[in-house]
């Protein structure tokens, strides 16, 4: 037992050391820390209320008092992007938490119990994976309606099958191990065996997938916003800002460039960090 607990700790410190030694991962982590700081200190960073129309003249080019320019209503784009981090990031994270928890539980149960439950569950997951995730999200929005909670649900549910599929596979591999059999033989109840003995041994792929998924969830949230199905005005959200800027692409390109660039940086950083995590946590890649 003691040995098991010690292993993750040493892994954590090794992780930190490797992160600092890898420039790309270090840069990605820095970008993300900056973004999170921007989200946390948004009211201090932003000079204007993100919803205030006529903060400046409409469609002012970037520079001076408006580093990212203003939109058609004279709202400050920089303030909106900074405040938008408080919307886009938490929604993306919440959706990932939903996908991770729901998908992992489902995958664990299917892999562990097998039989008819697994057969039915696996077919259901096959069907869900048959849809592109954004279509699934659109379908869910169509049923539930528009709103922040529904966006989280839509993005979260549309990501669930991928988690379930991978966790199921990993669980099947772990299920047959001697220590699981031992735990069962000692009279451990199914939930106890699952959570204390199986889950700790499949958490690697879950963490990697979850990290990679944050980027996608943010992107999907923004896609819904772009289609007008996400966050409602006057709340600033990066995808909605992109959509609002589309009409002015040739007159005020900064309305698309800045939200687009921030979205891009966020997603790329998260994905690079996810790749880095995968390298560390995937036993097959470790030591290469």
């Amino acid at each position, binding site marked *: 037992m003691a040995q098991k607990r010690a292993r993750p700790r040493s892994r954590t410190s090794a992780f930190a050391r490797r992160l600092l030694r890898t420039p790309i991962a270090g840069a990605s982590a820095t970008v993300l820390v900056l973004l999170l700081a921007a989200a946390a200190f948004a009211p201090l960073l932003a000079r204007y209320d993100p919803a*205030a129309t006529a903060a400046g003249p409409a469609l002012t080019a970037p520079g001076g008092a408006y580093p990212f320019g203003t939109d058609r209503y*004279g709202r400050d784009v920089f303030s909106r992007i900074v405040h938008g981090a408080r919307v886009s990031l938490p929604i993306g994270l919440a959706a990932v938490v939903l996908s991770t928890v729901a998908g992992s539980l489902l995958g664990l149960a299917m892999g562990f119990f097998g039989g008819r439950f697994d057969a039915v569950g696996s077919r259901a997951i096959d069907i869900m994976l048959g849809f592109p995730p954004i279509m699934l999200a659109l379908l869910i929005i169509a049923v539930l309606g528009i709103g922040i909670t529904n966006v989280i649900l839509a993005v979260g549910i549309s990501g669930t099958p991928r988690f379930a599929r991978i966790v199921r596979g990993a669980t099947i591999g772990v299920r047959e191990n001697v220590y699981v059999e031992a735990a069962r033989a000692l009279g451990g109840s199914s939930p106890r065996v699952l959570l204390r003995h199986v889950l700790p041994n499949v958490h690697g792929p879950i963490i990697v997938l979850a990290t990679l998924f944050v980027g996608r969830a943010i992107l999907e949230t923004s896609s819904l916003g772009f289609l007008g199905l996400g966050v409602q005005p006057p709340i600033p959200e990066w995808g909605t800002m992109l959509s609002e800027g589309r009409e002015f692409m040739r007159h005020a390109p900064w309305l698309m460039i800045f939200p687009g660039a921030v979205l891009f940086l966020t997603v790329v950083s998260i994905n690079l960090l996810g790749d880095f995590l995968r390298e560390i946590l995937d036993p097959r890649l470790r030591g290469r």
Partner: protein
Amino acid sequence: MRARRVLIVALLFLALMVPAVPVPVVAQSGDSITWGEDNDLVTLDPRVSQSRHEAQVIMQMFEALIFLDTDGKYHPWLAESWELAKDGTSMTFKLRRDVKFHDGTPFNAQAVKFTFDSIQDPKLGSQAAIDFLGPYAGTDIVDPYTIRIRWKQPYSPAINNLSNPWVLGIVSPAAVQRLGNDGFARSPVGTGPFKFVEWVPRQRVVLERNPDYKWPPKVFRNTGPARFSRLAFRIIPDASTRTAALERREIDVMDQLPPIEVRRFRARPDYDVMIGDVSGIPYGYSFNTSREPTNDVRVRRAFMHAVNRPQVVEQTFFGAAKPAYGPITPTTPGYWKDAEQYFPFDQAKARQMLDEAGWRVGPGGIRQKDGKPLELYFPVLLQPELAIPIQAQVREVGINLKVENVTKAKQDELIFANDYHVLPIRWVAVDPAVLSVLFQSRNIPSPGKFKFNWNRFGSPELDRMLNEADGATEPARRARLLQGVQKFILDRALIFPINMSFQPVGYRKAVTGLKFAQGQWQVLFYDAQVAR
């Protein structure tokens, strides 16, 4: 080596495919004009259509008995003269004798009777024309070139409605009999200056000049056949694509030029823009008078005083639209000018009204009463871009306008469920009788009954006033009654008129002689010319 061979084969294959891709060639001789249209079409039968986009095509092919110009004047068209009976229940028309349909059959009293009678047939599925005929009782053929149209009761919109070629245009009875209603809708036959050639759904409609045409109303300079031979309508729904097509000269004229492009195109030497101030009900917000808190007239009035209409409209539409103040636009007959005195921008007054109504400023500046915040649910489908500055301005007086962008399906669901406080509406119409559509209590929607009285103000008094105005065939009396209706609506703040619907038409300067039709949405091409 192998990879390179595969590559070469693949490239050759691609090269072979190129000529196989059809390239749409648009004739760019001076003999053709192409219009870029923002909306797809379903029917080209005026008796069936209810779409102002279909009207853009229909109006070039069909003609009405009377021509109504954009100044509100009537001119003889298919009818040489007309007379209203003293009791207001019938009109007699003397028809032109020299008119022929595109299929060569003669236009006469029988064709007019056939058109109007067939609209009454439920099998046709008329969407607008049947309403435009009102309490129609029948058409009598007095002689081959004289008809009398009868109504069950006096019907004042008759003269405007009979001037509307995209709804009450006269169709060729022989063609309808030959093609059937569905066939006619796809291959229409009228008497107008252009005749039908082809229609490729979702892509284009092509018309050609009617070489026999010589019976235009006097408002046009031209008196014979059109001065160019081919008129095409291309369906390009996306506004920026349409704008790019105009710049590349793939099209010559386009509707719904994005407001921000208006100044740029006006500044160019080779392009210009004309903007139609569309008649009917302006774009505005219907207040739901059946639900708290918009059932309180003080809340509705405060909302209207809180918004700086000229500023918001100017900013949102880059100067292309005009603010609106009355329930009908100044381009609609019977407009009451005093409407412009109502609800000037005055936030101090708005705050005072809300104070009097018991709404006190609460946390975050949003007003409260009995612990409930002053929150108005606003599902928006039309002109969502206007919602953002208005949301910001009403917030300054303590109203939280909860904006939600909705789909048409969701909007309709909310209408059936009576679940909204504010709802945007507009109605493009030529006759002020359109007020009944929005304000008659019989037009309050209910589950399964889609109607347009979204303010849900059911008042026998207003119903009576509207009925009286619709039955007043004497113009001066009708105008007086309509003023009363408009005053009643504004006094009770049932609707917040915001901007006149506008139709910015961008065109190449090489094209001259474009003319707005009645209502100022569609453009008539009969007088047009293209420089060679």
